[in-house]
C-alpha cells in the first residue's frame, strides 16, 4: 500500500525536478519525459487503487495529535479514476497545444505536481491531510492559471489564489472546532462528531458546518464565492483549463462530501437550516451560472460559467441527502468531469486551429473539422442531458432523488430549476454546433478547407466523448457500484 505514497510523491518529485533543472534544448525529449512520468504516475495510481484495500498509511505525524494519513475508500477510487483519466487526456492534448507557449517546462512541472496533489487529495484519510493538500493544490495550480503571463492572467491567478485561500481558511476554522468536538479527524462514514458535543453545542457546530460548506464551496465555484472561476479558467491554456474545471473544482466537491458525509454525518445535518441554506445556494448557482453562460460571447468563458452551474448540479444532489440524488451527484461528478474536459479540449483545439475566441466566429467550423465538431456536439448534448449520454442518467437521478426526498418545496423547486437550466444549457452550447454545421446561405464554401487538428489532439477528445456516451449507454454497473457507496454513507 506504499503505492499510495509512491503515486503521490512520484509526480510531485518529478514535477519539482522538471522545475529546477535547466532548460531542455530540444522539445521532444521534454515531451517524452513528461509523457513517461504521466503514464508511470497513472500506473502507480491504479496499483494503489487495486492493491491497498482500505489499508491506512501514516507517513508521519504533524503534531502528536495530527497524523498525516492516507487511505483508499470508494469515494477516493471514484475521484482518483476520474482524475487520472482526465489528466492523461489533457496531458497528451497539451503536447501539441503548448507548442507555441513559452516556458513549457514550467507548465509541465506544475502540471505533474498538481496531478500528484490531486491524487493525494483523493487518498487523504483525515481532515488535516485533506486540508494540507487542499492548500497545496491552490498554490501549485495557480501557476497553471497565470501561465501565459499576461497582465490579465496574473490578476486572474491572484484572484484565484486569494479566493481559494479564503475558502481554505474557512474550512480550517471548522477543522479547529472538529478537532475539539469530534472523536477523531479521520474520515469515517456516519460522521465523527461525538454525540455528547453534538447535543451540547449544536448551534456552534451548525455554523461550523455552514462555514466549511462555504469554504469548500469556493473551490467548487458555488455562489456566493464563484467570481474567481469565470476569471481564472479561461485565461489558462486550454488543457489547463480543462483540468481546472473538470477536476480541480471537483476537489471542492470532494471536500464538501467529506465534510458532510464523513465528518458531520448526514444524521446530524439532515433537516437543519444548514441543509436548506446549502440547497438554496446550489440552486441559485445552477440558475445563475447557466444564465451568465447564456449571455457570454467568448467560448471559454461561456464554458467556465457552465462549469459553475454544472458543479452546483452535483452539489444540489449532495445537499438533498437522498439516496437517489446522491447517486446522481456522484454520477454527475464523472460525467461532468469527462464532458467538461472534452469541451474545453475542443475549445482549445478550435482556438489552436482558428485563433478565434468568440462563439459567433466559428461559423462553418463543422465543415472544416467535422470530427472535432461532432465530438463537441455530442458532448454538449451530454451536458444538456439528452439520452443516450451520461448526462441524461445523472440528471435523471438528481431530479428523481429530489422529488422522492420529500423535502417540502424543494422536492419540486429543485427539479424545475434543473430543467430550466438544462434548457439554458442547450441555449448556450448548441448555437456553436449549429453555426458550425449550418453556417447559412451567405457562407462562402470556397474558402473552407479541411484542417482537422493533429491526432494527438483529437484522440483525447474522442476518448472523453466515448466515455460520456458509454456512461449513458451502459450505466448499470456504475449505478450499482455507486448505490453501494451511497448505502454506506447515508
Amino acid at each position, binding site marked *: 500500500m506504499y503505492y499510495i505514497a509512491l503515486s503521490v510523491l512520484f509526480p510531485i518529485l518529478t514535477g519539482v525536478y522538471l522545475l529546477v533543472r535547466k532548460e531542455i534544448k530540444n522539445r521532444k525529449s521534454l515531451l517524452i519525459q513528461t509523457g513517461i512520468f504521466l503514464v508511470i504516475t497513472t500506473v502507480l495510481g491504479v496499483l494503489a487503487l487495486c492493491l491497498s484495500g482500505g489499508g491506512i498509511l501514516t507517513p508521519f505525524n*504533524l503534531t*502528536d495529535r495530527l497524523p498525516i494519513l492516507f487511505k483508499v475508500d470508494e469515494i477516493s477510487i471514484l475521484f482518483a479514476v476520474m482524475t487520472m483519466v482526465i489528466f492523461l487526456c489533457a496531458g497528451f492534448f497539451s503536447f501539441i497545444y503548448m507548442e507555441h507557449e513559452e516556458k513549457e517546462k514550467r507548465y509541465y512541472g506544475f502540471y505533474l505536481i498538481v496531478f500528484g496533489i490531486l491524487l493525494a487529495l483523493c487518498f487523504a484519510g483525515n481532515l488535516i491531510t485533506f486540508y494540507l493538500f487542499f492548500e497545496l493544490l491552490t498554490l501549485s495550480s495557480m501557476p497553471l492559471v497565470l501561465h*501565459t503571463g499576461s497582465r490579465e492572467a496574473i490578476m486572474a491567478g491572484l484572484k484565484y489564489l*486569494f479566493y481559494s*485561500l479564503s475558502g481554505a481558511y474557512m474550512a480550517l476554522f471548522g477543522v*479547529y472546532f472538529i478537532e*475539539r468536538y469530534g472523536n477523531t479527524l479521520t474520515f469515517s462514514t456516519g460522521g465523527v462528531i461525538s454525540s455528547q458535543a453534538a447535543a451540547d453545542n449544536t448551534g456552534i457546530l451548525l455554523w461550523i458546518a455552514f462555514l466549511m460548506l462555504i469554504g469548500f464551496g469556493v473551490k467548487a465555484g458555488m455562489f456566493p464565492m464563484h467570481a474567481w472561476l469565470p476569471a481564472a479558467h479561461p485565461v489558462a491554456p486550454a488543457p489547463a483549463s480543462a483540468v481546472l474545471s473538470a477536476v480541480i473544482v471537483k476537489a471542492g466537491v470532494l471536500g464538501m462530501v467529506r465534510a458532510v458525509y464523513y465528518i458531520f454525518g448526514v444524521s446530524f445535518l439532515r433537516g437543519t437550516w444548514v441543509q436548506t441554506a446549502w440547497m438554496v445556494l446550489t440552486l441559485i448557482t445552477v440558475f445563475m451560472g447557466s444564465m451568465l453562460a447564456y449571455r457570454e460571447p467568448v467560448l471559454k468563458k461561456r464554458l467556465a460559467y457552465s462549469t459553475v452551474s454544472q458543479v452546483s448540479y452535483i452539489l444540489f444532489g449532495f445537499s438533498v441527502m437522498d439516496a437517489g440524488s446522491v447517486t446522481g451527484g456522484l454520477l454527475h461528478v464523472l460525467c461532468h468531469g469527462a464532458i467538461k474536459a472534452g469541451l474545453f479540449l475542443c475549445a482549445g483545439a478550435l482556438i489552436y486551429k482558428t485563433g478565434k475566441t468568440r462563439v459567433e466566429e466559428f461559423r462553418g467550423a463543422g465543415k472544416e473539422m467535422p470530427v472535432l465538431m461532432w465530438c463537441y456536439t455530442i458532448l454538449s448534448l451530454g451536458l444538456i442531458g439528452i439520452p443516450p449520454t451520461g448526462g441524461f442518467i445523472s440528471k435523471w437521478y438528481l431530479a428523481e432523488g429530489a422529488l422522492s426526498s420529500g423535502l417540502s418545496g424543494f422536492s419540486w423547486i429543485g427539479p424545475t430549476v434543473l430543467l430550466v437550466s438544462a434548457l439554458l444549457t442547450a441555449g448556450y452550447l448548441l448555437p456553436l454546433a449549429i453555426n458550425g454545421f449550418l453556417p447559412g446561405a451567405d457562407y462562402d464554401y470556397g474558402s473552407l478547407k479541411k484542417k482537422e487538428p493533429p491526432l494527438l489532439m483529437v484522440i483525447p477528445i474522442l476518448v472523453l466523448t466515448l466515455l460520456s456516451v458509454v456512461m449513458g449507454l451502459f450505466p448499470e454497473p456504475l449505478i450499482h457500484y455507486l448505490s453501494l457507496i451511497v448505502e454506506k454513507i447515508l
Partner: protein
Amino acid sequence: MILLVIFIPIIAGMLVSLIPFQKRSHMEIFLESAVVLNSFLVGYLLLHRPDHIITLANFTGNLSIGFKVDGMSIVFAGLISVLWPFATLYAFEYMTKEKHERIFFTFYTMTYGVTLGISLAANLLTMYFFYELLTLVTVPLVMHTLTREAILASRKYLYYSLGGAAFAFIGLIFIIIYGSTTDFVLGGVLDLERIGERTNVLLLIYVIAFMGFGVKAAVCPFNSWLPDAGVAPTPVTALLHAVAVVKSGAFAIIRLTYYSFGTEFLRGTWAQTVVMLVTMFTIVYGCSRAVKETHLKRRLAYSTISNLSYVLFGVTIMTPLGMVGALTHLTFHAVMKISSFFCAGAIMHQTDRHYVHELDGMGYKMPCVFGVFTVSALALMGVPGLAGFVSKWNLAAAAVESGSRIAYGGIGCLLISALLTAIYMLSIVVRAFFPGKDFNMAALEGINDPDWKMLIPLFVFTILILVMGLYSAPAVKFFNDVAAGIY
C-alpha cells in the same frame, strides 16, 4: 554563571569599541567567537539549571536584582542564543556597506546580554530594569544611519518605549504592594486578602501594565514606532524588531499575566475581554496595513505587528493551552520572520531595491534568497508542514478549548489575517517569479545571490522552519511542561 552569560556580551561589545583592531576580520573573529562562546554557555546553563535565585544587588527592602532559570527563561534565552550567532554572521556581511560599524557592533552585542538579562530575570523588578536598559541600548542601533528620519524614528522609539515602561512600572508597584513577592511564580503572586475590595482597580492596573509592556510588543494604539524603526540596518530590524526587542515585550506580558497577576485572578474578568479585543484588533490591523504598504521592510514590520498580537492573543486566552500557543508562536514566528527579514536585507544589500514593485522577476536572479523567502512566506501563512501552521494550530486549539465566544472571534481574526498574510507575502513571490511576459530580464543584469555569510543563516533558518513544521512534537511537549509549571 548566569551573570557571566549576561556580562560576556556586554563586555565584549564595549571591548569592540575600545580595542583598536588592525583589520576588520580580526574584529569579526573576536565578536563571532565571543557570541558563539556565550551561546554555548547559555546552552550549558539551560541544561544544568541552578535551582536557586542568584541575587546581584538589593534595592529598597524586598526589591532585588536577581536571576533564575525557569521554563520561560529556557524558551526565550534558548531562542535568543540560537539566533544571535547567525544574525551576527549575517551582520558582518551586511554592514560592509554601512559607516562606523564599530559603534554598531558594540551595541549590537551588548543587546545580546541585556536580552538574556530579561529572559533570565527572576523577579519583576529585574526584568523591568533590563527592559529599560534594552530600550537604551537599542536606540543607538536605530539611529545608526544618522539620517534625519533615523533620528526621528529613534526618538519616537525612545518615547514610546520609555512611556510604556512608565506605565508598566505602575503594574510593578502594584505587584510589590499587593503581591506576596515580586518573584515570578507560575499562577501569580497576588495575595487576595490584601486586595479586598479593590479588585477592579487591580484589573485596571493590569490593563494599564499590559498596554505598557504592549508598547514594545507593538499593540495597536502604540505600534507606529515599529515600522519607523525599520530605518535601522536590516540585521537590527531582523533580530531586534522581529525577535529580541518586540519578543521581550511579549515575554514581559507573559510574565506579567501568568507569573505575577496570575490567570486565576484575571480569567473571565472585563480586563481579559479588553486586552483580548485589543490584540484581536491589532492582528487584523497590522495585516491590513501590511497589505497597503509598498516598502518591503515596512511591510514586514507591519506583519510583525500582527504576528506579535498572535502571541498576545494566546496570552490573553489565559489558559495553560493559551500559554503553549503563545510560546509556540513566540519561538516559531521568530524564526520565520527573521528569515524573511534577512531575505529583505539580502535584496537591499545586493540591489538597493526597497519597494515591492521593484522586485519583478528577481526570483530568477536570486533563486536562493527568493526560495527562502517563499518558504518563510508560506510558513507565515500557515501552510501545513511548516512552522506557522503548528503555532497557529496551537493558538486556535487553545481558543476553542477556552470556549469563550470572543476567543472564537479571535480564531476568525487569525484566519482573516492568514488570508491577508497570503496576500501581502505571495504577491511579492508572484512578482518575483512571474514577472509577466512583457518584462525584460536584461534590466536585472549583474544581480545575483549574496555570498555564504548571508546565505548560511538563510538556509539554516529555512531548515529550522521545516523541522519545526514537521517534527514540532517535542518542542510543543516542552512548552506544555513549561505551561504546566514543571520547569
